[in-house]
């Protein structure tokens, strides 16, 4: 990979993140009404609101506020304080970002557990009964609303069978077994959808390789079908499958927002909704900014991994 390409990508990432920070900062000025009023409640007099605005620095020019806000985040990891409970937001973010990442990765694993066997099996006999069944199921999986599936899974596995907790979170250090029990339903909810998408990609990636000349050659020279599939087909399809995995991780980072909310999973998505409903705008800003940053970084890493994995792509 040429270093020029890398620098160019990093440059455009920084540019995008700069834009993201401006839009995120703009949330508070764009919202009608003052954050000071959220903190004080509706009964506060105009004088006390003005005093608190001054204390929060909201009377300064917007550019000054923006520079201060960004400097705090970049140099001190300081996102300010919550309007509702006055706690530092950075502590909340530090707790929630890992939870979102864990859920996204767990969902990706569930998705792969579905997609690889299903995709490979249906590609080996295209047009067969299994292929048809898999394609119907993956079509349903793609169309099913994640919040609805979450509710159905809660109904079956938490309320009726009582195998798993319906919501909440235990920290990994406290009780690993309970942590896992809480993780399963949210990860499966997000994983089924992502698995359905990846099944299609795995199938078509394999089908494409199966029609290459070297596969015919391998068969012609008398290799068993098993060896042909494992050594020649899977290995060559692995590159395109790997790139889909990266893309899916980024997609999942967005998709788990809904799943977090259903299962009260303490991630950035549920924080964003909660702060929106409570009108705790500085917290919303922090949650959105961190999600967008993580999302952009995952996307960049995915792009870079294409280049590393596939020698035929060269962005010189």
């Amino acid at each position: 990979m040429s270093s020029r390409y890398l620098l160019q990508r990093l440059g455009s990432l920084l540019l995008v993140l700069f834009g993201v920070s401006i839009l995120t900062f703009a949330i508070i000025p764009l919202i009608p009404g003052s954050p000071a009023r959220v903190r004080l409640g509706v009964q506060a007099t105009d004088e006390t609101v003005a005093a608190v605005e001054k204390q929060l620095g909201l009377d300064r020019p917007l550019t000054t506020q923006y520079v201060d806000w960004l400097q705090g985040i970049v140099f001190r990891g300081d996102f300010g304080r919550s309007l509702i409970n006055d706690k530092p937001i950075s502590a909340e973010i530090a707790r929630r970002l890992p939870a979102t990442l864990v859920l996204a990765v767990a969902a990706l694993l569930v998705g792969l557990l579905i997609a690889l066997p299903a995709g490979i099996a249906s590609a080996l006999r295209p047009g067969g009964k299994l292929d048809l069944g898999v394609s119907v199921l993956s079509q349903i999986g793609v169309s099913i609303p994640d919040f609805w599936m979450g509710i159905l899974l809660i109904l079956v596995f938490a309320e009726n069978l009582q195998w798993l907790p319906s919501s909440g979170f235990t920290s990994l250090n406290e009780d690993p077994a309970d942590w896992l029990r809480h993780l399963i339903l949210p990860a499966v909810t997000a994983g089924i959808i992502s698995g359905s998408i990846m099944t299609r990609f795995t199938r078509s990636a394999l089908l494409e390789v199966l029609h290459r000349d070297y596969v015919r050659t391998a068969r012609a020279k008398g290799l068993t079908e098993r060896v042909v599939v494992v050594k020649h087909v899977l290995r060559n399809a692995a590159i395109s499958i790997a790139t889909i995995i990266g893309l899916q991780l980024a997609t999942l980072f967005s998709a788990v927002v809904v799943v977090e909310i259903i299962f009260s999973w303490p991630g950035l998505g549920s924080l964003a909704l909660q702060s929106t409903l409570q009108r705790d705008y500085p917290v919303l800003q922090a949650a959105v900014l961190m999600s967008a940053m993580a999302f952009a970084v995952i996307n960049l890493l995915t792009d870079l991994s294409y280049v590393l994995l596939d020698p035929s792509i060269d962005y010189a």
Partner: protein
Amino acid sequence: MTSPEPTLYRSPLKDFLRRFLRHRLIILGSIIILSLAVIALFGSKLAPYDPVAMNFAERFATPSLRHPFGTDEFGRDVFSRVLYGAAVSFKVAFIAVAISGTAGVFLGAVAGFFGRWLDEVIMRFMDILFAFPAVLLAITVMAILGRGVGNAMIAIAIVYAPIFARVTRGAVISVRGLEYVTAARALGQQDGFIIWRHVLPNAIGPIIVQTSLSLAFAILAEAALSFFGLGTQPPDPSWGRMLAEGRGFLQQAPWMGIFPGLAIMMSVMGFNFLGDGLRDLLDPRLKQVLSANR
């Protein structure tokens, strides 16, 4: 008047229609969407009950002939509410995609046709919007605009406009250098006219596909926003809201959550089928790959 079909020339439109009618995925998708559209248009006449009329004598009635989908905690008929909800979902989805498509296609066409700094500025801005996870961006826009159906449409439109811009830009770039565009220019035609008359019609395929797929996303997004309590407000029946209400009574009355969810899934599936099928039909490269596999 008879017009015998020429043996050598087949009209592209007729050819397209013939293939359209033979494509199973498209047929299935169209049937689903047409039936849901009929429900959306005439649901208020088909519904056996008033969707907001409460009847405490019949709370949590199980599905039966009287109430095919059961009743909810206020004794409201779930079947009637699902029928009314179709109108809400489709209205929000179509208006949101119309706004999003118009804005996205305009920006993408301008960026792709004129290139240079205009392209840079527009597409960098789209990249910035793209950098937000979709659902979070929608929630954030709702935080700024406030709750309600109208604002949900705007939020959904903002989230999906960048996709239209990208798709359109790509398609426009692929035709803008072709000879007939140069010829139009040589004739002294205005840029706006060239884009509208010559470039966009030849870039329309991917835009149509994207419209169908976006309608699927928009139905999901509206349901999600209403589920969170940000979109449609009570007592209006909306599939997302009904799911949220049904969630509290899962054990007691699972039908309250099951039927609106099924309705969402059917609509999303219909638009996905149609979009996937159209992509098959309209993208010649993909078709070659598919027929090579057959």
